[in-house]
């Protein structure tokens, strides 16, 4: 009897719930589209700004729901793999161009929709140099350039002038100045070049290698890494590293410059606000708790005493920078992918784009030609443009067209070079030479064999 009652109750419950379930399913087919947007701007203030852009877009497009997810750029590969295995990929990601190419060559990026997005914005609107960095061998686009930064040597122009030294534009000038200012007994150092086995080191080294005409591959894709030019660049880099602060160093050592303990350092244009704004510099100073240590106070004159050299010359002249891209991911949910294209298109509209770029004036430079001269763009809320002057900022922006990397040789895309970059073989080699004291030839042989493993 009890069992019969139970069965009847079950039937009643199923009859009551089923219509709602069916309706809900029907709604899911035609209802709102939702997708994830992974950004590498993980800082809370930047997340807040991007969230405002997302909210604005959602108000304009009530059928689209965007879930903004911060992902550390070093974690992007791991997270993408995990999401791919779980069938839960984001529709849109913000990612460095070299990584976009490496992932794209593995079939992760939606080249059709990324091409479509470029067409919608207008191919001519982009700096061609930036577009070239995301192009595949067959001319497809693995991602869409979004913003970028330029690297250079930032140096104490007042110290150089006092010492009668030339600006650090050539190999000779750089080494001479690094040696001159290296005074470890006074806790003062000549230069900062990356020596840890990580991306910053490769960024510093690439500019030296390319300024000596050294490449990883020739234009036909043959590995030519182990060349006399490359060896010369490695040897020169190791000599410069002697004038670093002690031990393996990375970008974080730029703090020593802000404390007045270093003459030159490699850095991107992201440093501009730290140099000029006290509240930004605070995190780099030694602080009130260490009164005996020099460098606890903000130097308001540092910004005027600092100059930047974007190009380095030896046998060639080379600049270096990184383009950050937006990429639509290859995935089965075409509605989400289409919505991602539309949202990305919105991010390139002048107001949204400038709001995004103003999160880090100088650091995030536009890849669209028209934006640099836009009046609103030149009036950033932090006043960075005013500090450096419109002319300097225009020079930095125009550098977006001249970025060179190992992965483009004579206009040809060399995908394997991007994979080598993401595997950090070159910084590992430089670590071995500068920190473990490995012989340059042995370290280069090691790096070459690692590169061959990847290519095979």
């Amino acid at each position, binding site marked *: 009897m009890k069992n019969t009652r139970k069965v009847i109750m079950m039937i009643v419950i199923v009859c009551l719930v089923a219509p709602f379930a069916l309706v809900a399913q029907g709604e899911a087919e035609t209802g709102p589209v939702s997708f994830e947007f992974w950004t590498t701007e993980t800082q809370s203030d930047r997340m807040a700004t991007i969230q405002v852009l997302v909210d604005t877009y959602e108000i304009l497009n009530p059928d689209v729901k965007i879930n903004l997810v911060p992902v550390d750029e070093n974690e992007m590969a791991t997270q*993408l793999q995990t999401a791919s295995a779980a069938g839960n990929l984001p529709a849109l990601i913000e990612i460095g161009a070299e990584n976009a190419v490496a992932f794209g060559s593995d079939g992760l990026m939606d080249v059709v929709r990324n091409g479509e997005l470029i067409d919608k914005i207008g191919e001519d609107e982009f700096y061609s140099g930036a577009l070239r960095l995301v192009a595949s061998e067959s001319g497809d686009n693995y991602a869409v350039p979004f913003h970028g930064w330029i690297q250079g040597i930032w140096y104490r122009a007042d110290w150089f002038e006092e010492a009668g030294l030339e600006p650090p534009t050539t190999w000779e000038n750089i080494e001479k100045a690094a040696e001159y200012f290296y005074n470890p007994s006074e806790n003062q150092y000549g230069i900062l070049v990356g020596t840890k086995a990580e991306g910053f080191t490769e960024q510093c080294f690439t500019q030296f290698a390319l300024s000596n005409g050294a490449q990883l591959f020739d234009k036909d894709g043959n590995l030519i890494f182990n060349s006399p030019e490359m060896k010369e660049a490695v040897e020169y880099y190791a000599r410069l590293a002697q004038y670093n602060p002690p031990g393996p160093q990375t970008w974080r050592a730029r703090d020593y410059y802000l404390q007045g303990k270093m003459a030159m350092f490699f850095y991107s244009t992201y440093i501009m606000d730290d140099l000029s704004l006290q509240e930004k510099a605070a995190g780099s100073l030694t602080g009130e708790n260490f009164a005996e240590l020099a460098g606890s106070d903000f130097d308001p004159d540092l910004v005027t005493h600092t100059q930047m050299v974007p190009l380095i010359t030896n046998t060639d002249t080379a600049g270096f920078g990184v383009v950050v891209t937006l990429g639509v991911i290859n995935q089965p949910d075409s509605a989400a992918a289409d919505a991602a294209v539309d949202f990305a298109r919105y991010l390139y509209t002048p107001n949204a784009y400038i709001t995004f770029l103003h999160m880090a004036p100088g650091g995030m430079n536009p890849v669209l030609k028209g934006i640099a001269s836009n009046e609103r763009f030149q009036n950033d809320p932090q006043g960075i443009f005013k500090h450096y002057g419109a002319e300097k900022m225009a020079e930095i922006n125009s550098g977006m067209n001249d970025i060179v990397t190992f992965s483009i040789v004579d206009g040809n895309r060399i995908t394997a070079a991007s994979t080598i970059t*993401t595997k950090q073989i070159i910084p590992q080699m430089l670590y071995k030479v500068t920190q473990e004291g490995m012989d340059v030839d042995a370290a280069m042989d090691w790096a070459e064999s690692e590169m061959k493993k990847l290519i095979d």
Partner: protein
Amino acid sequence: MEQSLSLRRSLSLEQKKARLGVQLVLPSVIVIGLLIIYPVAYNMYLSLFKVNLVGNNTFIGAKNYINIIADATFWQSVLTTFLYVVFSTFGTTLFGLVVALTMNKKFPLRAIVRSIIILPYVAPVIAVVYAWQFFFDPVNGIFIHVVVEMLGLYDQRFNLIGTPEYAIWVAIVFSIWKSFPFTYLMIIARLQTIDNNLYEAAEIDGCSSWKKFLHITLPELYFVLGTLILLRFVWNFNKFEEVYLLTENVKTLPIYTYFKAFTGVMDLGQGSALAVIQFVLLIGLIMVYVKKVLKW
């Protein structure tokens, strides 16, 4: 219904107990099966493939294993791992033992000292690692300031944590400092249960403090110490966050695996193979240890 009742009645007490035992263990078996055995088995399966980001994986047999064994860096990382594990495990145990013996004596403010000793163990790793990095910073660190500027023990500043030849020893000292409170707690708990009559009898026989330690304390602590060494060995063999965050350039097996599998475009097949090798090495060592030392 009646049939099942008669079946239940026909079970002996032993059988009923066994059945209850199975029922009690079953949920844990299912959870362990899902969360541990399945991932381990899947990992072994994956190690035989070239794992593609998109699309199907390619079966390559033992190639991942062959590549790893042929890689000199792998053997270096095995050596580094053993160096790190052996020194940090014995250091932690020895230091924990010394502190426990000291804390077992009565002295003023003992309760406060006992509480303070626990701090390194309970402090979050990331906070402590940053503190150490600031402490040993070559340009602004207080350690260098004291040994170079104030005491003049060294001519020039140096990077203690970053320099490859020192880094592993810093990691070992850090591990000992961070983990000894756990060892100390376990040992002192056992020390307090040792019958005081044993020590009194030894004293009557004229034993020195050293002999009392050697013939009473140490045998009483044997299995606690044995278990602590086993646990610390396993934990330190798999330790990632402390070593990676503090030094970055001490390539123990877990860190080597991380670089192989997750740097840049991921090589999950090779990463899986490395994890399997690490697993086999660890299980093998544990089995030897359990049989020879713990005599289970």
